[in-house]
Every structure is written in C-alpha cells, then in structure tokens.
C-alpha cells in the first residue's frame, strides 16, 4: 500500500516573546531565528505511518511510505530524520514562495504530484498548520483528486491491499469505518503519537540517503480565491498581579483570602 504523508514544518511560535511579534509592511513576522519544528498533527501522521509499516509483517500488506513537504531548505534537518526513520522515500518540493495562506496552491501541487509523479493509495495530512491555520489543504487535495476524505482521524488499521479500518472523531463522538482506498485521511488529535527518535546507527546508515527534490516551477498554480489583507497581533493582557509571600503556603492563603473566597461563595 502506497502511503504519502504530506507535512509542514514551522517555527515553534510559543518560543517568540512579546517583542518579537512585529508585523512588517509585507505582512511578515520574522521567525527566521527559530528552527523549524514539525507540525504536531503531521508528527502524529508520520508516527502512525511508521507504526503501520512496523505492523506490515503481521498484516502481510507491505507499506511503501513516503514523506513529502513543499518547503525551502531549512526543512532539510527534518527530512534527514525521516530518512533515518526509514521512510522509503523523502521528497521536498522546493519553493521560496510565501504559501502561508495559500492552501489552494499547496493542495494543487500535492494533487499534481500524486497524479503525475507518484500514484498513491492513501494520503495522510494534518488537521491544521500552525502559521496559516488554514485547515483546508487536506479537503482541497481530496476535492482535486476526486477522492473521499475522512477528517479528525485518530486510528488506522490496514486490512488488506485496498482496505483500511479508520476511526475518526465526529461532532458527537467517534465513528469507525471500513473503507476502500484511495482516500485522503486527515489526522486529528491522537494521544501517544509523538514521533520516535531514530537510533544513532540508523542516522548514520540511512540519514544521508538522497532526498528527492522537485521544484514548484514544475507546477502551474491556480488563482487564489481568498487573499490576505491584514494581520494584527492579539493582546490578552490582564492585571497580572503577582501574589507576594515568603512561602507557597503564605501565597496560597493570600490567594484565597483576597481573591477566591468571595468569588467562590457566589458560584
């Protein structure tokens, strides 16, 4: 079964301090000093793909898993790690373009990649990117390919070459479905799917395997139907009064007496 995991790396925005949140005239925020980290939903997608591959001896369905990102060079460290984790192939579609708010363009490139470069049975994408927060790419890829899509996926079992059992979250619970490929699976919140760390040996043996690099110029992009006009930093400041005291016990007493007692009595 051919599985393609599409992922994006972005700076860990929680590492920025207040002064770093400056929006320039081109509506950019400088995050170049932070190293890119994997989007957490994509991290789950990667770990799930690796687990399906681990289980292939049992299921007798061989898993051909590939990871792909559309990004500039800083993503290379992550690509090397994916190589060391023994993804069958790791691909980067090179681009310096500003795709932050262009899920339509990303979806177009991804779908063209599947149609023209490498046939797939299943695509894994994450629920939402960190910077763009578009939450659209997986749906647009599915639409472009004419494939069905299951969102908020939390569990996947391989049944045979063409069938999967997929558990996903819906608005009032969960649903477990046996489905036929091809399909797009959008990975949601999945506890205990932190990406494994490759062994040093695997890093040495596989980490330096070549990364396939394509260029976005190979793809003609569609017009956007949504356009960014403005960005404004959101401020949430409150009083932020520090409760002073010599010991935690003193502070707790002060907290209760001065701030909580009366409020809790009204609840």
């Amino acid at each position, binding site marked *: 079964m051919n599985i393609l995991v599409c992922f994006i790396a972005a700076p860990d925005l929680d590492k920025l301090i207040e002064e770093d949140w400056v929006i320039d005239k081109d509506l950019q925020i400088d995050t170049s000093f932070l190293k890119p980290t994997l989007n957490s939903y994509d991290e789950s997608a990667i770990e799930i793909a690796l687990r399906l591959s681990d289980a292939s001896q049992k299921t007798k369905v061989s898993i051909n898993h590939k990871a792909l990102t559309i990004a500039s060079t800083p993503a290379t460290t992550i690509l090397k790690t994916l190589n060391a984790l023994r993804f069958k192939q790791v691909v980067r579609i090179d681009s310096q373009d500003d795709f932050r708010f262009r899920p339509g363009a990303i979806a177009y490139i991804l779908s063209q990649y599947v149609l023209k470069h490498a046939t797939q049975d299943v695509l894994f994408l994450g629920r939402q990117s960190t910077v763009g927060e578009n939450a659209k790419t997986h749906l647009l890829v599915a639409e472009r390919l004419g494939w069905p899509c299951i969102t908020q996926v939390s569990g996947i079992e391989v049944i045979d070459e063409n069938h999967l059992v997929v558990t996903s979250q819906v608005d009032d619970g969960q*649903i477990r479905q046996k489905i036929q490929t091809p399909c797009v699976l959008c990975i949601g919140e999945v506890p205990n799917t932190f990406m494994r760390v490759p062994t040093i040996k695997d890093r040495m043996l596989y980490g330096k395997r070549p990364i396939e690099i394509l260029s976005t110029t190979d793809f003609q992009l569609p017009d956007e139907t949504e356009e960014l006009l403005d960005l404004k930093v959101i401020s949430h400041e409150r009083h932020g009064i520090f409760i002073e005291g010599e010991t935690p016990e003193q502070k707790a007493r002060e*907290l209760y007496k001065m701030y909580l*007692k009366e409020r809790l009595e009204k609840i």
Partner: protein
Amino acid sequence: MIYKGILNGCSTDIATQAGELNNFISDNLHSEDTVGSTILFYSEKEQRDALIRLVPTESVKLVRITRYQPENILKALTTMEQGEMTHLYLFPSGFAGSEMAVRLAFRMKGSSLVQVKQIEYSGVQLIASKTVYANHVLGTFKLTKKPYCVSLAKGSANDQAINTRDKLIVTEYDMTHLHENQFIKASKAIPRKQASNLTNTRFLLIGGNGMKNKADTQYLKQIADTIGADFGVSRPVAMSGWTSLHRQVGVSGSMTKAAVCIVAGASGAAAFYAGIEKSKFIVAINTDSRAPINKTSDVAIIDDYKAVLDELVKVMREDRPI
C-alpha cells in the same frame, strides 16, 4: 445579500450549532437588505418539531437523510443549491461545518474560510477575519468568489436564547434515498460517553505540562474534586495520554467561560489561552516568572503548583467544609 445557515440535526450538538449561527447572524448580518434562511439536515422523524424550534431564521428547508455522511451531504447540497443566488453559506464551528464549508466552496467554484470570527460584506466581496499564527494574530481576508462558504470560530455561542418564532416557511425534502458513498464498506458510530462538561463550568482547575506525568495529573484531578472544580488540561497532557482527550482546553479542545479558572503548570500559549480567555477571573500558578500566562491572568503566583494547591485545600477546609 442572501445567506443560508447549514445545520446538522443528526448530531447531538445541534443546540450549540444553532446557538452559534444565531449569535453570528445577530452580530454580523443585520443590514436591511440581508435575507437569510436555514437548511437543516436530520434523520429522526420524532425530532423534527424540536429541531425546527432551534432554527435561527424564519425560513427553513428541512432535509431528511438516513445518516450524516459528508460525501452525501455535499451531493445533496450541490443538487439543491444549483442555480440558487445564495451569496453566503454559514456553517457552525464543529468538524462537520469546517469540512463542508471548504468542500462546498470548491464544488460551487466559490471561496471559503474556516473558523471565522467576523464578516463584512461590501457588495462585491466578503471581508472576513480569523486567527492565524497559532492564535497569536488576527488575520483579515478578502474572499473574492461567490458563493462564500464560511465556518464559524469555536466558542462563539453565548447563552443568548434563540428567539422561538413561528416559522413562516418550512419546506421539506426527502433525501433518504441517497445511498452510502461507495468507498465506505461498513461503519459504526460510537457515541461520546462523557459529554465535555467544561464548556459550561463555573469553576475550573487546569493542569499543564508542568505536571510532568500521569500520577501528578491524577493528583491534580483529586485536588479539583476536593475543591469542587472541574478539571481540564492543556494539549501536551492530553497528547501524552495522562488523561482523556475530552479534558483538553484550548482552540482544539473546549472553549470555557468559568467564573474562576486556576491554571497550574501551563505556560499560557495563545492556542491554549483562547480556551480560557472568556473566564471572569484567572489565577496562574507557575514556577517561571516569565511564563506568558502570568501577564494574561488576573493574579499570578510564582511557585510550585503542588505546594500552593495543597495549602489552598487546607485553607478552604478550614474556612468551610469541602
């Protein structure tokens, strides 16, 4: 402008969906030349009348289906809406709403935006805002192609009751003939056992990654029980499997509005904070005086959360039986 709200009456969260649409409509769509109606999908005949009472507009199309399956709903919507002059389709904030907004726009050659907070229509384009950069920044976007398909930001429903009015027009459609999409070979719904009780909590204690392990998470849950608070967690705690996912607070979990919210051992990331920003009073307990949560709280204690909370339990016990 002509708009339509789309509701999924097959889901048990229908009242929240309707509440969200109702608030959004009253905040954003009040100009005189605005005409709105609702399309409501449902499957249980007995629920028909109760569902109609939730509808936030005066006119409603009721569409009966066997099961809410996205591929089929899209088919139904594109068929029903072909040739209609609708400018704007509004979907609630849930998973189904966001999925439908994007896919319907694609099929109808329009534009879409999800998790939208506010809109403004100029006659030629729709201006809409939503959070970006993991909730740190508000982005304003121009949607250029009609129909505009928009899903709402989570937590936009307040307690404002829906004005139960006599519905003027109710049109009924039967689409129970729509068969399950071919790609699904079997399916089984697993209803939620524990409804998230956090959305309506009055007193909330939240534990973050500062708890470090499952045992500490259980310990904090006990403290919450003792002081009569509901217990929530930040995303890393849920992702580590230290507690069940339904306790997660934040943009990808519950959006709460407690009277008192105590946050222990969470740094106060923007994506988390969005889940507590509507609290009346926020207390932060954190060992790091530079953690962002200190500034976005009403009061902050810089100390170990265990030491502080153990003592808080004692004082509360001394003061009144808990």
